[in-house]
């Protein structure tokens, strides 16, 4: 169960080669923690995004931290294609396991439920299926000649995300972002960064408790104010559009990306 720890210490469970699961942009992305991982030069991550990613995946890929990426999409949204993801893909240096959004939800929910697989409609006849030998088609036993796809559980070693607040017991207020509960339930370990500590017990008040992930599932909490920056934190702050535009400009080339890392990732260590 959770202890409040300094960021680098909290991230120690994310080892080279680990299966790391992270949420989509709108759910709360631990960007400050991502920068700390890049500073630490974590390597060979199997990165699973629930179900998509933007800057977080692009940074980790560009910094050489990712061996395999399991995702339904990496995109910078209205800013355009994710530059380092796109470059790594066309260079053939990144393995992907392309999925569709509900397939990643289903596979993590299978882990959450302790079942070996989850069925999902769709998929049949797509090239997503063609590249995923582990997605099996069986005949639905409740109908005649009705093929349906089974997806094996994804069991992350670590889930990492950012949330508005946690209390001293490691209970984390996630609000409507229930994807974060799925991640924590499915993962062996969960690391959370938060904007602030909440004085008092988040589970004690019924209204707050309704949006709280119990500390029981949380292994470490670190405080990281504006920890999703430059991405948004729902209901707290919007994306920093100017910074993201700057990122897009710099990350268009390997050299520009290296300067971005220098200025906004490595330089922040000293700060």
């Amino acid at each position, binding site marked *: 169960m959770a202890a409040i720890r300094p960021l680098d210490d909290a991230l120690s469970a994310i080892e080279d080669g680990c299966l790391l699961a992270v949420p*989509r942009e*709108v*759910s709360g992305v631990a960007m400050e923690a991502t920068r700390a991982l890049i500073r630490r030069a974590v390597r060979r991550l199997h990165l699973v995004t*629930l*179900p*998509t990613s933007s800057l977080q995946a692009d940074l980790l890929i560009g910094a050489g931290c990712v061996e395999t990426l399991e*995702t*339904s*999409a*990496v*995109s910078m*949204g*209205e800013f355009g*294609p*994710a530059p380092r*993801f*796109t470059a790594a*893909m*066309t*260079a*053939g240096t990144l*393995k992907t396991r*392309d*999925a*569709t*959004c*509900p*397939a990643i*939800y289903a596979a993590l*929910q299978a882990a959450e439920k302790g079942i070996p697989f989850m069925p*999902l*409609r*769709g*998929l*049949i*006849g*797509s*090239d*997503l299926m063609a*590249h995923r030998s582990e997605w099996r088609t069986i005949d639905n036993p409740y109908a005649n*000649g*009705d*093929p*349906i796809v089974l997806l094996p559980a994804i069991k992350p070693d670590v889930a990492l995300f950012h949330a508005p607040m946690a209390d001293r017991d490691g209970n984390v207020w996630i609000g*409507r*972002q*229930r*994807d*974060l*509960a*799925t991640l924590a339930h499915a993962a062996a370990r969960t690391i959370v960064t938060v904007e602030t500590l909440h004085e008092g017990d988040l589970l004690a008040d019924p209204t707050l408790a309704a949006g709280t992930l119990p500390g029981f599932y949380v292994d470490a909490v670190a405080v990281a104010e504006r920890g999703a920056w430059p991405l948004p934190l*729902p*209901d707290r702050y919007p994306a920093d559009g100017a910074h993201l535009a700057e990122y897009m400009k710099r990350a268009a080339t390997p050299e520009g990306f290296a300067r971005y890392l220098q200025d906004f990732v490595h330089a922040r260590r000293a700060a």
Partner: protein
Amino acid sequence: MHAAPPERPFCEEELLASVIADLIGDVRHVAVGNASPIPATAALLARERGGGRPYVSLLQSRKHNFFTSGGVELFDCAGQGRIDVFFLSGGQIDGQGNINLVNIGEHDKPSVRFPGSFGSGYLYYVVPKVILFRVEHSRRTLVPKVDFISAPGTSPDHVHRTGGPVALVTNRCAFSFDRARRRFRLQSVHPGHSVEEIIAETGFDFDCPSDVGETPAPDAATLQTMRERVAPELAEVYPRFAERVFGIACGKPASRAVSA
């Protein structure tokens, strides 16, 4: 509230939104994915015309989005049959309605990589009316055969499929999709474009009736609804689009002219 002056021209975005709003028809629930300002305009327009029906979920919006059970709720909701219309696009779309959101060339070392399939590998199968939308109508985007099938346009009869494409709207025309024949059919040509141009710019074969007409221009009432009632709602989610197309800044109707 100021009425739109009759001489004010409509722009391409308004035309496309109007075409899509007509395609939506009388349904219960339209969901609009990310980065889809024109479909969002169309859905909100349909809702304004229908006096609140259909219910519109803009997945990028805080306000126009009821989901409280996480990202999976959209897909569960579709699985429950509670989403009637959705919009999909493709880096490539082919004549069988297959869409490609993944790559051109080899999968492991492609020449072009798109972001990924998003929810298409599921939603294309289970949402009854999927409207394909791709502004750029060219042989680059509308191809004989996609390089990667993120989701197929049709499925064999024995495959569970309650949904699929009904139409494809581009900057040049609107196609309908015939599921039985697994082909597109040219439905109407947008003002200023021609059948010949469309044949020349389309990489796949399609049915082309001899009497295909011009896409009807949005009427004054439609334009007024879009500009005065839809545009301010859009500004929450698509502020740049709302400003560029409708001259909306900070969620307030604009008084300056709109460039068509």
